[in-house]
């Protein structure tokens, strides 16, 4: 580093649209180009600065003082634009307002609190896998039959949702994650469903709509104790419903896709089913179900010699950081012998996914059930992607399996 004041390096600029269908369908080439272009790249189409290397993404994620979430973690800047719904008290809030909702939810979703769910979730996973293998035979769509079915079987019950309308959960999540991107075709496609889905989700957040022993009731109990306010409680429940379904579904699908395409790793898991948790985190690193989030600069901030102006939006490519060859050896390999710790697929720092232990427990149960019953797992046909502005998601994952005898 030179001590003399050098002329600022020109910022690499590009007019590519990371939210264009081609990049969403296959982000790897874009990620490679962005990482190669420099630590910071200006995306002229949206006038945002993009970070795609691990080091810069990690630094931005942990530095909540400089990289604000309260102005929205999507492209929309809440300083000038009205959010499409009341901002999330967790994702779209900064300290000090972020503290109490985060604390309440992290206590309810702590590994300790989740231990009481383990036994029943494992038996649901065992039943589900038995049923699928019996009724669907050797070929089926693992996205529908497993990755979608399992979370929808256990998570809404754990939250305490009523039986009706659960089919709205995935469309609502899909809409919410699209809304972090630009107002493109994907957002417009949901426009006529937005009011209806939002109204349904909001109705589920009321105390009366929730059973007495779920996560939702515990959030309301926290409001009774004054740990959060009664106005905050339904919004905290909403966070569970928005962030707790699609992400897990696509995370599980990522793990299944990884195993279907890496037979050696499947055998490794079969030999040591306790690797289920590592496998899930490695799948989250490898596929990054949440691909991108934005922050907003609270001050003129210098990142690797480039000044991002106060109020400027910064787009962090979590998926690109998770495959940065400067951080990971052979990053495109799905590898159970790797330690995936430090991946940014769940974010990092103050806003790191509060529900990650729930997702890990779901994955552990499902993968364990499968590993005990399925000796071989492979793709039966090319899988189909579903495009979303934020999520690396799936439409179908046709697999062929061989049952253990």
């Amino acid at each position, binding site marked *: 580093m030179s001590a003399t004041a050098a002329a600022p390096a020109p910022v690499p600029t590009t007019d590519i649209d990371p939210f264009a269908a081609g990049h969403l369908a296959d982000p790897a080439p874009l990620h490679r180009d962005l990482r190669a272009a420099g630590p910071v790249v200006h995306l002229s189409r949206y006038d945002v600065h993009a970070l795609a290397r691990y080091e810069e993404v990690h630094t931005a994620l*942990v*530095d*909540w*003082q400089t990289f604000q979430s309260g102005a929205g973690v999507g492209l929309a800047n809440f300083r000038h634009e009205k959010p499409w719904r009341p901002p999330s008290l967790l994702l779209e809030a900064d*300290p*000090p*307002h972020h*503290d*109490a909702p985060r*604390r309440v939810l992290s206590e309810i979703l702590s590994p*300790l609190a989740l*231990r*009481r769910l383990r036994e029943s979730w494992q038996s649901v996973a065992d039943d589900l896998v038995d049923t699928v293998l019996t009724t669907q035979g050797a070929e089926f769509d693992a996205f529908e039959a497993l990755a979608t079915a399992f979370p929808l079987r256990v998570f809404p019950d754990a939250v305490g949702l009523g039986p009706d309308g659960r089919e709205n959960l995935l469309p609502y999540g899909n809409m919410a994650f699209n809304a972090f991107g630009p107002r493109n075709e994907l957002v417009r496609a949901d426009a006529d469903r937005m009011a209806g889905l939002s109204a349904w989700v909001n109705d589920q957040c009321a105390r009366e709509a929730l059973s007495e022993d779920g996560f939702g009731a515990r959030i309301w*109990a926290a409001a*009774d*104790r*004054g*740990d*959060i*306010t009664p106005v*905050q409680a339904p919004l905290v429940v909403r966070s569970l419903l928005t962030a707790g379904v699609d992400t897990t579904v696509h995370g599980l699908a990522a793990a299944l896709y990884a195993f279907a395409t890496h037979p050696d790793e499947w055998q490794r898991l079969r030999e040591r089913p306790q690797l289920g948790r590592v496998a899930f985190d490695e799948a989250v690193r490898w596929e990054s179900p949440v691909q991108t989030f934005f922050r907003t600069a609270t001050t003129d901030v210098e990142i690797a010699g480039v000044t991002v102006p106060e109020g400027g939006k910064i787009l962090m490519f979590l998926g690109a950081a998770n495959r940065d060859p400067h951080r990971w050896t052979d990053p495109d390999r799905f590898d159970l012998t790797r330690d995936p710790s430090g991946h940014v697929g769940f974010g990092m*720092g*103050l806003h790191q996914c509060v529900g990650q232990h729930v997702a890990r427990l779901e994955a552990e149960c499902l993968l364990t059930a499968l590993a005990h019953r399925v000796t071989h797992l492979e793709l039966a046909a090319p899988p189909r992607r579903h495009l979303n502005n934020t999520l690396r998601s799936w439409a179908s994952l046709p697999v062929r399996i061989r049952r253990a005898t």
Partner: protein
Amino acid sequence: MVAHHLLPEIARATPTPTPALTLRVRAKDTVADGVVSLTLARPDGTRLPDWTPGAHVDLVLADGTTRQYSLCGDRWDPYTYRVAVLRETAGRGGSAYVHDRLAAGDPVGVGGPHNHFPLAPADRYLFIAGGIGITPLLPMVHQAELMGIDWQLLYGGRTRASMAFRDHLTTAYGERVHLCPEDEYGLLDLDSWLSRPEPGTKVYCCGPAPLLAAVESACAAWPTYSLRTERFAAAAPAEPVRQTPFEVELRRTGRTITVPPDLSVLHAVRRAGVEVLSSCEQGTCGTCLVPVLTGTPDHRDAVLAEHERAAGDCLLPCVSRSRSDRLVLDL
């Protein structure tokens, strides 16, 4: 002086937790009579873990003892932690070590931060500090100010000179701060502050046990959960509910052990060969928390909130015991 050949024995009996961080004392300042403040930072100057007002860190001192101190600095500064340490003349030596031996430049093991005293939303706050109990309240005051929430601070101490941060508080916040040194005003006039319950106000109190007891009794008529306290020392031990042995089943290990009256659950579990991380062994740090699957704990810690005790699904085995004949732990 402990003979060296004995050390492995001692280490097995009370393992010292490996601190997550080794920080350096960047500055040591006297901030009041008998109170020093330590500014701690990483040797390489990088970011420290985030914290929230009410949080404490564990300082692992050179002699292996661990003590908890509230963070009283600025959470917006990610590079330094600040704690203030009162010399406890009747203490167990931790504060004397900090006062007499720890110097700028020395390494210190730091665990945490943990927060058992978080700031919950309220319409108004009444903060009550006794002596060094001001430390966790200091960032709370700042936070209340940031959120535009009405607050007052009632701050008692032996003498004005013994009250840390008094000048900062009065300069920054003026009339919201009520300094009441005992040698000038006597004990805090809790009755005039607390006799009329105020719905919407939360009372946050930290200080010596007699102050906490007085505030608890003065708040008896307040709405449940209005009062939030933190003790620095372990709560005065009440008699255990049962004086007879009880059984503890370690479900995952597949063993059942008997805990006699003179042995802690923690030590009984360890004797059975099951490792549980612990730190203070006084029920004040929360390190050893374990899930309870069946049975009714006799909670004797100073960490769990009332609702957590009532749920009965976890306990601190270093001090807590059993009400039922049998406890089943997820160990």
